[in-house]
């Protein structure tokens, strides 16, 4: 089935449901809509960005309580309180995010558990919040002079908001900042190499999720016209997460699917379990918990992928390859690009790189070689900013790199690849390459969500296509990156680095693990890049591979420079022969 037809059917069903369905189901659909908003945030945060929050219910509560208190006790307009609620959520979310997300993976969920519990007790304790009995008499929302008092009327309001949110998040995921969020699961080193700040990007995803939850809470307060702390406890926080896991992260519609399935299951269980067990109690939580564990064990991507098989998504139309992005001014051929002077790196007592000095000039292909453990990769990491040198100087185009972050170094014009390929497996090849052009675009989250980024987006994709043609992989543009063999994935990485318009291309053991034919193709590509005037620093341990390829060689052994010069001279050097052959 065509996805557009399916979408029209879904929207049609949502549109006529309240006219034909009994009131009970309209109520249920209202809740599904409200839950979908929260689950959508978690799809973005957990499914896509690889972070999680158990405190989403607290953000829902924040939205609900802010409007309930301000409208009933201070007579403010619900529209004004919406802005205030979103503002508070933004501040809280940002604060929690920057505190926890600059570190490893598991501090945000812990902080959100604590935050969820604190806010729950706070809502139940503060007297002007009505304690655990809550606040009644929350006014109805007036939209264009029309008071939304009946459930059937509010239904349309909720679902228009939900569809708008789905549209925005789908737009976001398919854009420059969205690709950055989708790349987060690959680890900080990769995203930083393209100028993406991982902590800030994760915080952005968390704040968006929090804002959606807050919006849902605001809607809830004006639908119910009453709030108390119960629906904002930590249990509900887990149910939201359950919805997101059930739906899965392959599409924003997973949020709606998850919200619908969990809500229906819960209603059904609450009817049947007490009859089965013979007493009342929240026994549905047992079933939910078991199902959640089983899902994570057997279907970690949720249920949507099973349904999506029936709706093959046609490949999107891409702009033709083009060159519409601004370029850097490249240095004149032969001028110094990289100047490594007595660079040193120590790990405790171990000197991994011992006062290494070499340089790379514009238009040159230089090979940094040495046997295993020679310090090549450490040296590479010092230049790319993944590690910081202990002493010495590394100048790139006259700028000192030591002390600069990987993403600042990327901004200066250094493009790199990874020894262990770091492509985003679930994105297409062209999207992966477009990630490389991140720093050459400018449109942010808001513009991208609202599709105000079409020119920017088209230029980035055209550039990605241009680089794919340059490396000869244009035919694979629509394939998922993880479907390619290793040799092609390495070349995609080169295309991604080229998309950043680098002055210097750093290749980290590009031939490692490749078959002979793949090595030949790679060598041909590097030669053709050299023919175009590209400056390349190549780290390799395969002497044969670099021999016919490079202008100059720098040989490291035990962290020290052993030799440098023309390939033939280096090959004949007795010290090098001894290091490589041990004879």
């Amino acid at each position: 089935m065509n996805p557009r037809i399916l979408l029209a059917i879904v929207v049609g069903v949502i549109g006529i449901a309240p006219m034909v369905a009994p009131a009970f189901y309209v109520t249920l659909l209202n809740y599904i809509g409200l839950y979908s908003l929260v689950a959508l945030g978690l799809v973005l945060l957990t499914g896509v960005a690889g972070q999680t929050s158990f405190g989403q219910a607290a953000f829902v509560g924040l939205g609900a309580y802010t409007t309930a208190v301000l409208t009933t006790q201070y007579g403010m307009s619900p529209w004004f309180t919406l802005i205030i609620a979103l503002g508070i959520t933004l501040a809280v979310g940002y604060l929690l995010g920057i505190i926890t997300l600059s570190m490893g993976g598991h501090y945000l969920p812990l902080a959100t558990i604590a935050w969820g519990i604190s806010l729950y007790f706070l809502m139940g304790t503060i007297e002007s919040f009505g304690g655990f009995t809550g606040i009644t008499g929350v006014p109805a929302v007036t939209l264009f002079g029309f008071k939304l008092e009946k459930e059937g009327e509010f239904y349309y309001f909720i679902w228009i908001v939900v569809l708008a949110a789905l549209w925005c998040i789908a737009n976001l995921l398919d854009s420059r900042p969205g690709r950055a969020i989708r790349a987060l699961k690959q680890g900080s080193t990769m995203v930083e190499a393209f100028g993406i700040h991982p902590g800030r990007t994760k915080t952005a995803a968390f704040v968006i999720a929090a804002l959606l939850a807050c919006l849902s809470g605001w809607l809830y307060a004006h639908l119910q016209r009453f709030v108390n702390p119960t629906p904002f406890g930590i249990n509900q926080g887990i149910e939201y997460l359950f919805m997101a896991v059930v739906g899965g992260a392959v599409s924003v519609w997973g949020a709606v699917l998850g919200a619908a399935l969990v809500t229906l299951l819960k209603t059904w269980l609450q009817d049947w379990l007490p009859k089965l067990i013979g007493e009342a109690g929240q026994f549905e939580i047992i079933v939910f918990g078991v199902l959640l564990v089983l899902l994570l064990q057997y279907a970690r991507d949720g249920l949507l992928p099973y349904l999506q098989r029936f709706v093959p998504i046609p490949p999107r139309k891409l702009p033709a390859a083009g060159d519409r992005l601004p370029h850097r001014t490249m240095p004149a051929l032969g001028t110094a690009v990289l100047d490594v002077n007595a660079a040193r790196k120590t790990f405790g007592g171990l000197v991994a790189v011992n006062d290494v000095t070499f340089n790379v000039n514009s238009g040159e292909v230089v090979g940094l070689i040495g046997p295993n453990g020679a310090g090549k990769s450490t040296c590479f990491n010092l230049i790319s900013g993944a590690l910081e040198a202990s002493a010495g100087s590394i100048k790139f185009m006259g700028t000192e790199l030591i002390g600069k972050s990987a993403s600042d170094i990327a901004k200066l014009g250094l493009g790199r690849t990874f020894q262990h390929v770091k492509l985003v497996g679930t994105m297409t090849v062209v999207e992966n390459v477009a990630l490389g052009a991140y720093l050459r675009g400018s449109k942010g989250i808001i513009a991208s969500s609202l599709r105000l980024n079409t020119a920017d987006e088209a230029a980035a994709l055209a550039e990605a296509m241009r680089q794919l043609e340059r490396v000869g992989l244009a035919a694979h543009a629509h394939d998922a990156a993880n479907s390619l063999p290793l040799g092609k994935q390495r070349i995609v990485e080169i295309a991604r680095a080229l998309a950043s318009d680098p002055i210097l291309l750093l290749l980290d053991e590009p031939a490692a693990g490749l078959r002979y034919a793949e090595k030949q193709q790679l060598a041909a590509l590097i030669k053709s890049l050299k023919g175009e005037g590209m400056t390349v620093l190549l780290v390799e341990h395969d002497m044969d591979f670099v021999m016919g390829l490079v202008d100059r060689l720098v040989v490291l052994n035990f962290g020290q420079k052993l030799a440098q010069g023309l390939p033939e001279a280096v090959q004949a050097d007795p010290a090098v022969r001894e290091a490589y052959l041990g004879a």
Partner: protein
Amino acid sequence: MDFSIATLLAQDGLTNGAIYCLLALALVLVFAVTRVIFVPQGEFVAFAVLTLAAFEQNKLPGTVWLLLALAAAAVLSETLTYRREPARILRAVAGSALPCVVAAAVVWGVWASQAGFALQVLATVVSVTAMGPAVYRLAFQPVATAPVLTLLIVSVAVHFVLTGLGLLFFGAEGARTSAFTSTSFSVGGVNISGQSLLVYAFTASLVIIMGAFFKYTLFGKALRATAANRTGARLAGVSPNFAGRLSLTLAAAIGAISGLLIGPITTVYYDSGFLVGLKGFVGAIVGGLASYPIAAAGAIFVGLVEAFSSFWASAYKEVIVFTLILPILLWRSLTTTHHEEE
């Protein structure tokens, strides 16, 4: 506040803190070996109290049914896992379901024979400890290589299942157990109860034993190796599944003993474990989920903060304790360097 109230609060805080400390130790232990942030730790505590309380009221503890439910699930899971190699089913069942069945039999036996307090305590510890390996086998072993995040979600799900089962098998009423000792001492005008001393002594010895176990024994090093690199540990002859099961068994045993210690101090309900466990958690985070002595100090600090805030702002006690985690996290984020998970 005068001196006598302050000493009372301090003693109260120290006792609770010592119990949080035990939980913090169990959390650090489980995290260090399995990378699981073990949210259900508190449930073991609650189940121990409710089991012992049922014994004392001459009722058959719901633990029997809970254990049998876990055993049934384990049998089902092993059968499905090894459906193509029936020979292995029996051995696997012996490892995961059998301890639960034996423990259930012990509980039933102690109840039926109306045995004395000592045997009741023993049966309580045995029954709760037996849940550890079954929980690991059912929930965590199949996802053992998953990212920390997935493990955390599984962990929270397990917490909800256990809480629900607790309600089902123990009911909604709270319970208190009798103290091990009613003696008390007076030191310089300050009364110290024997029960508190017992708590301090047990906690202190466990901190030392655990620290030493992981630092100096080959077995402890093997468990740590599993946490660092499952494949590597396996190649070196350490079974990661065994390590995981062992760490949860130890955690469950620590939980059971914590329950025995906390039972006479507060009324415990089927869902009390969560908040108690989380407070241990705040302590564990102070130690970065890595250091036993720092986690212990953190947990005692949480106990003291809780005791004093219950005096000054009792309604906001929980709010204060859980908000405390934010400055702690901020401090940790400023002082620790982050290593990426590859």
